[in-house]
């Protein structure tokens, strides 16, 4: 009750922040973050726990009463700045911390839906983000909230006032670096809690990296490049080289090899490892870079104590399709053939659903989660793709006569069987719920194009749906067998994350504007609500004062509307927005 009075007082002030700095709000400890999945009254990590299973043990809202889920309030991000909203909010002591497009963040009083503070990053001229101006969420520790901005900075704000505590540079935005992922906070014995960030950047010349900082000061503790030949750092000095120089890259191409870690990472308190996905290699033309090109399009496991890579596994070695495999790696315990396996799962851009041993990266299984995959005939028993040479895009240099050259239709498209949007793992059903898309792409060698004033041969591509009636496909998959248990088909491509609960529900949003809830066993659609703009973010649920809440950020955008092609037909009418919606089952209805 005390807290509510504080909140009411604070929100009645025009700038509540100053009055807010009292002891009413407890600091967030590292133990709170590690135990986030089981503490239902707060959400202090991206993914509802460091493993990012996006599973809540809450069961107040279930299959029988979901029909009574109604909105409580909606909060507008305001301004002219809308575009894609891909953020997952955090919840602590009755306050929601939510980030929005154009590197903005708000603290909102959940009891009233009123703003407590707003932080608006001043973005410099000269940032050219490749793929919309999204942000995916914040991290919280102690009395601070942290988030990354489009100019490749990480900012620590006082969680009660929104004032900047420190601000550090992840990369040089003028060199093509950016930042959109939620930071990851992990415990270490040597350094205490560290805040880990990846990096974004699509241009040739970018090197993927994971950086670890002291959350109090922002000082860098270690950094680890993802591309072999590059040196890591530890406590301000060079530490070790990633991999072996020129093992899987020709010439000096390892200096600019790509492999951006733009989706952030997950952490497993059991193995004490941080897992990051790495993006596609550069340059795009695979004929110029013979070899596997490590560690691009891979999952890597990093020891947070010193930033050393413990293992790496490439999903698409020598990628030639832009299968930018940053996809999240979700640790979970899997019962297979009567044994418990310390596993991890990843649904890759390339269309295969991988299960690895999370202690050592050894391959366990891979199965397709989208239909008609063409780039590989399958994944062999060692976890290597069985390439189909006919379906590798041609070398642009071979069409020097100025003709269109070889054209290839590849499935999935470069936007992936699954893109950034996180899947969920249910501890109730033991199934993964994967937001996927059924689409392919034509790739051809373009006659002539120009880059920075000079003629060269590039590639052209266009994305095409595979089926007439749908692209989006939410699938329930049994990780032990790879069997698809059910599928929900959606006309527009799915671009939002998934949440599942002990109440037997699976939540996800659609570009058409609906937040939907499905039966976790059958896939039956049990509930939907039209939010008025497309949804491309990840839902959350928590408990406050004995009631279960659900929230989703809304606002159409992200990479899909930037690409067009035939996909544009099913999304071009969608309107932009920018808000967060909060729902609950009213008390009198919940009891029934």
């Amino acid at each position: 009750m005390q807290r509510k009075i504080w909140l009411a007082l604070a929100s009645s002030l025009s700038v509540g922040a100053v009055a807010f700095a009292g002891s009413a709000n407890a600091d967030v400890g590292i133990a709170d973050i590690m135990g986030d999945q089981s503490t239902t009254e707060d959400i202090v990590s991206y993914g509802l726990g460091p493993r990012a299973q996006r599973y809540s043990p809450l069961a107040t809202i279930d299959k029988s009463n979901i029909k009574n889920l109604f909105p409580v309030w909606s909060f507008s991000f305001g301004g002219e700045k809308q575009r894609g909203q891909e953020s997952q909010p955090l919840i602590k002591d009755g306050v929601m911390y939510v980030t929005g497009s154009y590197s903005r963040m708000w603290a909102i009083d959940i009891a009233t839906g009123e703003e407590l503070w707003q932080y608006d990053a001043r973005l410099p001229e000269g940032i050219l983000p490749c793929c919309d101006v999204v942000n995916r969420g914040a991290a919280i520790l102690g009395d601070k909230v942290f988030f990354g901005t489009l100019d490749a900075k990480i900012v620590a704000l006082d969680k009660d006032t929104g004032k900047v505590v420190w601000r550090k540079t992840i990369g040089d935005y003028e060199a093509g670096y950016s930042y959109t992922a939620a930071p990851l906070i992990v415990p270490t014995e040597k350094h205490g809690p560290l805040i880990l960030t990846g990096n974004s950047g699509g241009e040739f010349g970018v090197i993927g990296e994971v950086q670890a900082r002291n959350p109090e000061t922002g000082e860098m503790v270690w950094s680890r490049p993802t591309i072999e030949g590059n040196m890591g750092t530890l406590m301000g000095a060079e530490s070790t080289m990633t991999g072996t120089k020129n093992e899987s890259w020709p010439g000096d191409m390892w200096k600019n090899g790509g492999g951006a870690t733009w989706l952030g990472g997950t952490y497993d308190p059991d193995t004490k490892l941080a897992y990051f996905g790495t993006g596609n290699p550069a340059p795009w033309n695979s004929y110029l870079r013979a070899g596997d090109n490590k560690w691009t399009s891979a999952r890597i496991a990093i020891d947070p104590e010193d930033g050393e890579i413990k293992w790496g596994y490439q999903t698409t070695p020598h990628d030639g399709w832009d299968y930018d495999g940053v996809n999240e790696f979700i640790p979970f315990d899997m019962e297979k053939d009567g044994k418990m396996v310390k596993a991890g799962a990843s649904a890759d851009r390339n269309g295969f659903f991988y299960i690895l041993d999370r202690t050592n990266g050894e391959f366990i299984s891979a199965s397709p989660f989208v239909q008609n995959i063409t780039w590989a005939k399958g994944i062999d028993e060692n976890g290597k793709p069985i390439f189909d040479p006919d379906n590798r895009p041609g070398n642009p240099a071979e069409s020097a006569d100025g003709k269109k050259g070889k054209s290839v239709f590849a499935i999935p498209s470069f936007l992936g069987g699954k893109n950034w949007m996180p899947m969920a793992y249910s501890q109730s059903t033991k199934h993964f719920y994967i937001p996927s898309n059924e689409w392919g792409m034509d790739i051809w060698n373009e006659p002539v194009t120009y880059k920075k004033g000079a003629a060269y041969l590039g590639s052209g591509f266009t994305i095409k749906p595979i089926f007439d009636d749908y692209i989006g496909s939410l699938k329930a998959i049994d990780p032990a067998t790879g069997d698809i248990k059910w599928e929900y088909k959606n006309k527009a491509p799915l671009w939002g994350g998934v949440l599942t609960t002990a109440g037997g529900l699976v939540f996800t949003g659609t570009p058409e504007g609906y937040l939907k809830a499905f039966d976790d066993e059958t896939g039956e659609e049990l509930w939907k609500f039209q939010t008025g703009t497309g949804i491309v973010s990840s839902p959350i649920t928590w408990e406050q004062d004995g009631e279960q809440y659900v929230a989703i950020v809304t606002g159409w955008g992200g990479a899909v509307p930037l690409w067009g092609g035939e996909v544009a037909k099913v999304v071009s009418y969608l309107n932009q927005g920018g808000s967060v919606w909060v729902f609950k089952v009213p008390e009198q209805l919940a009891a029934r």
Partner: protein
Amino acid sequence: MTRLKHSVRYVAHLASSLAISLTVSLCLLQASHARPLDEIIDAGRITFFVYSDYAPYSWSEADEYHGIDVDIAFALGKKLGVEVDILMRGADENLDDDLRVNIWKGDLIHRKVADVMLHAPYDPEVNARNEFAVLMAPYFQEKMAVVVDRKAIPELKSFGRFVTNPIAVELDTAGDFFLSNAFRGQLQDSIRRGRTFADAIGLYMDNEVPALMASRAQTEWVAKIATKRDSYIAQPPMPGIVRTGWPIGLAVKHDSRDLGYELQELLSQLLDTGELQAIFEQYGVEYLPPELN
């Protein structure tokens, strides 16, 4: 001089043949605010887009803009009687992207566009597939070349030399693309890629490489500033290169072509008086008229 005037007529002809499709596109799109000639004269200001880190054409140093394209922008502004603003940004993945970001749609964050893009390669195919921008007024000819240190390599007749000798190039440029593919990848181990053109020049200046590949104007610039090296420009056969030369012009928004025509005329005047050639010469670059066929 006659060549430029010829090119002006050529562009006019091309534009009229595209007029029908462009009218359609005008109806479809409520264009982002375009600035035809009248508005620019009324406002008394014009904005030129030029590439950053692109010596000798355009770069910034100590908050000042430098280069051939910058000088051309100011010469054109002076002739128009308006103030000149420079919008300097890095190159995107290709010319089509540059036209979108800098001429007709703007960037995602600040939505800023320029009235004119300088240094837009003049190519009818690119023009045809970009309905919201128009390529006009080719004003000089670009080629690929190598700047070579005479002491290290007295004569350069073939790129085969670079199987054993290192060569610098700016990362992810036409030169990089050519060298990476040349002789079935046999030069791969010899390529020293600079993150920027300035980095590549650094490799040459510091004697780390005996040669550097870039556009002809860029190599002439390097020869001029690398005073400690005795440099010459070579253009050995480039098997597999997509184009050995191409004309460079400017781009305007599809509904600002009157501005484009005016600038064509002004460029012709600059050429007639020799001012255009003088701008190039200031940077050690020989002016070559556009070759159109």
